[in-house]
């Protein structure tokens, strides 16, 4: 146990120290990976129980736009704006979640409804173009380094913020994973009617993870917006972002704690690698290859890379003991 603790602290120290030795470009990549990891983890909090939302772009968009607009137009500090954005996202999650869960809209139905939600939020942002800049996007009013405006020129600040956020996301994941509610959620994922029959309050459990997931996603969107200082409906909401969130999570592994993080790491490195490789030639080529790889991964590694690697090493006999379905357990052993 002690050896493991030392190892944890050692790794953490390396991760924290990393930015002070890297170039800005790699720092930018690291920050992106951490922020997206946070968002992907937030998605997996509900996704791992089979509540597949294809509309998390909606929560991200609301989370990013509310504080951005409030600051730029009314000078409201993001310290108030971000909680407000999170609150609006939570309300949105309740508005969409309540009827869905009340009338047992599950599986394909739920996925399609949420997909439409993401698109509708994007269209609303575009429709309010006088205010939000529409499809052209919207640049936050810049004031240089300021804690009040949550704007920093140096990337080091953002690195630390992103790191904290990511750790907080993992902590929430663990809390839910260890909590009593998880058994209930597993039961719901397995068979809703049976779960209801043994007295599980399905509505309560489902709404709980949905609200948590939406709130975290909105917070991730807010920090992402603050970091980039530029919001565009296509890049923070809409189908593309919603699907990107689900893909990366599934590719990494939605059922383990670090799966979404690994998904973020791999997909961002892949997209960046392809982008750099193609430069400005062949616009569309990087995403074509990316899409093809996604399809192949989903066909051949349906439970994600983390899970597959564990299976491979299990088969090779390098891990002792039987495979445990608890996420935290498997990650700890991996």
């Amino acid at each position, binding site marked *: 146990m002690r050896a493991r603790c030392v190892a944890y602290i050692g790794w953490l120290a390396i991760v924290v120290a990393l930015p002070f030795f890297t170039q800005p470009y790699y720092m930018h990549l690291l920050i992106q990976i951490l922020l997206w990891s946070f968002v992907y983890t937030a998605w997996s909090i509900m996704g791992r129980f089979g509540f597949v939302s294809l509309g998390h772009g909606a929560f991200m968009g609301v989370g990013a736009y509310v504080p951005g607009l409030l600051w730029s137009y009314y000078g409201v500090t993001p310290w108030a704006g971000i909680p407000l954005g999170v609150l609006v996202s939570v309300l949105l999650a309740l508005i969409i979640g309540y009827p869905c869960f009340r009338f047992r809209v599950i599986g394909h139905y739920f996925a*399609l409804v949420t997909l439409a939600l993401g698109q509708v939020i994007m269209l609303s942002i575009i429709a309010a173009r006088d205010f939000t800049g529409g499809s052209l996007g919207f640049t936050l009013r810049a004031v240089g380094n300021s804690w009040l405006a949550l704007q920093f020129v140096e990337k080091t600040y953002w690195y630390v913020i992103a790191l904290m956020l990511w750790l907080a996301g993992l902590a929430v994941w663990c809390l839910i994973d260890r909590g009593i509610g998880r058994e209930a959620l597993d039961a719901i994922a397995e068979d809703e009617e049976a779960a209801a029959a043994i007295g599980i309050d399905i509505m309560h459990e489902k709404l709980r993870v949905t609200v948590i997931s939406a709130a975290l996603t909105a917070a991730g969107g807010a920090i992402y917006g603050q970091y980039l200082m530029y919001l565009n409906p296509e890049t923070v909401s*809409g189908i593309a972002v919603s699907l990107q969130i689900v893909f990366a999570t599934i590719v990494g592994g939605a059922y383990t704690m670090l799966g979404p993080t690994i998904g973020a790491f791999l997909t961002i490195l892949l997209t960046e690698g392809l982008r750099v490789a193609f430069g400005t030639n062949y616009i569309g*080529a990087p*995403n*074509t290859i990316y899409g*093809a790889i996604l399809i192949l991964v989903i066909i051949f590694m349906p439970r994600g890379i983390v899970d597959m690697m564990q299976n491979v090493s299990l088969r090779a006999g390098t891990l002792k003991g039987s495979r445990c379905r608890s996420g935290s357990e498997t990650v700890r052993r991996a």
Partner: protein
Amino acid sequence: MDIFLLEAIINGVLLGGVLALLALGLNLIFGVIDVVWIAYADLVMCGMYVVYLLYAALGWPLPLACIVAVVGVAILGVAVHVLIIAPILGSAPINQLLATGGLLFFLQSFATLLFGTDFRNLGLRLPIIEVGDIYISSARLLAFAMALIGAVAIYLFLRRTFIGTAIRAIAQDRDIIGLMGVDERRIYVITSAIGAALAGLSACLLALQYDVHPFIGNTFGPLIFLICVLGGLGDMIGGFIAAFIFSQIIAIGGYYSSTELSYVLAFAFFIVLMFVRPRGILVR
């Protein structure tokens, strides 16, 4: 009544025809194979590009270009089923959703690679028909008529032919169909081809009215999904009716405010209706 509002309503009905055709195709695939093609609207995009390429760039006659587009998209649909859906029929529903979602990325990016992000149109002006004070685009009228013919043809096919009966039987009871001497896999391939062919037909009809660009699928896709869910996924008649309800909301909403807001309105309406008819408009 306001003449422009009347025009909006008529346009709504005309748009509804094409949407109904698309909802029919998606419902057919879902009902039989139990998979939702997230990239369904992007098959339409592919079909529109085929029509554009053959008609506007290569100068083929329009009907021939349309036939090639329908057949081409049908073949694409078979490829989608054989290459993507068939290997993962047994895995979790989310994986099937996502695999076709990956296809959405792939098709949109591939179209960007081939054609760039420019908006392209056929450069074809069909005459405007004047009825009293109302102007009706004959392209839309043609699209509506063709969509209805397509829908009736599919209905007759499902009712009158052996394969059609087998398709309906599979949608009703997947487990028993093998015992009746029907090869499931063959029916799946045929259904994919028909579903995709409907997307191809819609593509021809939409190409007459709209510019084609790689992301046009995003305009129609979510709308078709809402229509199918509202009608009850797999319920073809429900989807048909829902298509006209939605096209009316879009048309009338667009008349009073902007197009984007009319989509928002349609979505709000959809949420309200979910409370009233959660299993589809035709199911109490």
